[in-house]
């Protein structure tokens, strides 16, 4: 299905006001937690229920696979096979929950940090890495997987997500849009404009802030003086929540509720997940310059994959055998990735002129001709 050729009819969907008092919009005082760091069940705040075990098992599977993918990508940078890779190790719960809360018709708007989410959504891992291998700016077809191209200019994607959600609403469809952004990205003007537009147009979009405590080297304390980033929602009339971002069960519960809220026509939702970027900003970063090992070690203890495994094992819904099966699947994906990424993509420099416009302009045809001659000269 090609989204761009669809011919929606703009129907007069009424735009109800968000209404609601300020109190009803604010997040809970402490982040929602359903599973403790020790992997035992926590008392959920009212309104939240743990997702079904089958879903949690599936979440575990995708987290393990995601982590293995991430690790493999990092290794590939060391071998010079990727230009750069921004790892999201430590954020598995957020990335997988973000995807599992969606249905097929929904859209995901990711950042460069969200490779694990792309893999979880079913994007071919090789195509996830097209950008980072330097082959092209986007490797997959956004319209088939309903994942927008990975966005680098921070927070700009939130407006696209809002527009896409608004398109859904206007067409009378029941799709929801999930938009990812980092803690640093919340400082950009586009964050503000997107939340405001979404609230005013009552667009079915969930803004999901993965607060991993750093924007490259800049710690949260230098980024914002707000009580939490989730407290930004009330200023737009947007219902907001904060959640323990390393607790898959909690993130999935909160996001599922947020998506349901949006899908049922109650407007946008803002969720902040407290998590941590375990690696440097990218493989090229040198995090020792700005944070100490103790902090990283403290967060290791809160590892989201370990926590979910302990929880599911404790609950008796994940066997040792299951764990091994999942790990084997992850290894298989990594092996497949290694094999396929080694095959150099055949890149035709002349393709550079193919997608600037629907049809190349006369000027581009001239320039294309010039490059073609140069390339022939080189071959000769």
């Amino acid at each position, binding site marked *: 299905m090609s989204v761009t050729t669809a011919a929606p009819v703009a129907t007069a969907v009424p735009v109800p006001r968000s209404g609601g008092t300020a109190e009803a919009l604010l997040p809970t005082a402490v982040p929602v937690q359903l599973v403790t760091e020790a992997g035992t069940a926590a008392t959920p705040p009212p309104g939240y229920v743990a997702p079904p075990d089958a879903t949690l098992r599936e979440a575990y599977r995708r987290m393990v696979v995601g982590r293995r993918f991430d690790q493999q990508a990092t290794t590939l940078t060391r071998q010079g096979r990727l230009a750069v890779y921004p790892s999201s190790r430590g954020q598995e719960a957020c990335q997988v929950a973000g995807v599992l809360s969606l249905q097929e018709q929904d859209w995901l708007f990711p950042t460069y940090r969200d490779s694990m989410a792309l893999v979880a959504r079913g994007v071919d891992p090789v195509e996830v890495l097209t950008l980072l291998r330097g082959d092209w700016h986007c490797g997959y*077809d956004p319209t088939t997987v309903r994942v927008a191209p990975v966005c680098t*200019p921070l927070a*700009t994607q939130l*407006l*696209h*997500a809002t527009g896409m959600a608004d398109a859904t609403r206007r067409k009378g469809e029941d799709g929801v849009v999930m938009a990812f952004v980092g803690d640093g990205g919340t400082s950009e003007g586009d964050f503000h404009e997107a939340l405001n537009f979404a609230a005013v147009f009552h667009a079915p979009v969930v803004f999901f802030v993965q607060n991993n405590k750093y924007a490259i080297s800049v710690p949260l304390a230098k980024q914002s003086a707000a009580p939490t980033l989730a407290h930004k929602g009330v200023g737009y009339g947007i219902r907001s929540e904060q959640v323990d971002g390393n607790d898959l069960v909690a993130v999935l519960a909160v996001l599922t509720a947020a998506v349901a809220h949006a899908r049922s026509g109650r407007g946008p939702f803002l969720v902040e997940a407290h998590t941590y970027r375990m690696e440097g900003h990218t493989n090229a970063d040198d995090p020792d310059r700005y944070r100490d090992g103790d902090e990283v070690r403290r967060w290791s203890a809160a590892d989201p994959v370990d926590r979910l495994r302990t929880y599911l094992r404790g609950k008796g819904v994940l066997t040792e055998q299951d764990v091994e099966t999942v790990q084997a699947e992850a290894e298989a994906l990594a092996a497949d990735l290694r094999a396929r990424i080694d095959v150099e993509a055949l890149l035709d420099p002349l393709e550079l002129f193919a997608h600037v416009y629907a049809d190349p302009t*006369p000027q581009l045809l001239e320039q294309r001709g010039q490059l073609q001659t140069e390339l022939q000269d080189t071959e000769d």
Partner: protein
Amino acid sequence: MATVTMAQALNAALRDTLREDDRTLVFGEDVGRLGGVFRITDGLTDEFGEERCFDTPLAESGLVGLGVGLAMGGFRPVVEIQFDAFAYPAFEQIASHVAKMRNRTRGRVALPMVIRIPYGGGIGGVEHHSDSSEAYYAHTPGLKVVTPATVEDAYWLLRDAVRDPDPVVFLEPKKLYWSKQEADLGHRGVPALGTAVVRRPGHDATLLAYGPSVPVALEAAREAAQAGIDLEVVDLRTLVPFDDETVTRSVRRTGRCVVVQEAQGFAGVGAEIAARVQERCFHSLSAPVLRVAGFDIPYPPPRLEHAYLPGVDRVLDAVHRLQYDDVPDTIHLARGAA
């Protein structure tokens, strides 16, 4: 045939588009009930409802970014920016997304959207209301850049722009909004977006102009005719893609060329045109390609804009310097500039 202003023609183009194509959405600041500060969207909300023509919150990056998402979702957004300088907050969305989406996605995601920008001076606007910002867009690959100078062109170019598969920055010369023409908008006399047109044939030199400068060039040609100089006037209409063929054909024939633009000259579109023309017509040229442009200063306050705007005299001054007698290499200097 009826007497139509450019503002009315643009309004009719939007109306006819909204009628014909359900996917079209018109939005921006004050485009709803008010009909836009220049009334280009007058009556559209009444006719098509709030869902087809609507006000947005006051944020230009926001409304362009919303347009990107709506276009991805299958709509054809026509976004109005209220004044030229108020497009600058949207520059990142325009340069990094609107212009690049098709290319980034290897052709899989197109963004057929139009960004309408009233531009240029001559209407006594206070600061930030009279910028000529075409060069910023023309220099950004992936955008098409269009600017009408006549009423009929305004109608057809805007219709073409909305139908175009690529994003179009549609620059409306503010001071021509109230210009009138006997026009039959029902009949398409105008070829497609992407072509220049010879507005006045002539033999002695070519004036290349676009948007608000076209009437100036035509008036200069009329005055020059009285002095026995026969000027050809080309209205470029589309800056990107550029119609090299029409331009080159004209200049090779006349052998002399003046480019007229209202924007500040340095690194403007006129520079590009002069550069291309001399590249393509060097051996046909009897004189350098001269430029008549705004000064390289911020747009002046209303009471001084007369001193800024390139008018007939400044164009004729350049025409007279086109080396009918040979004075090597000081020709570029306007009188007084030495």
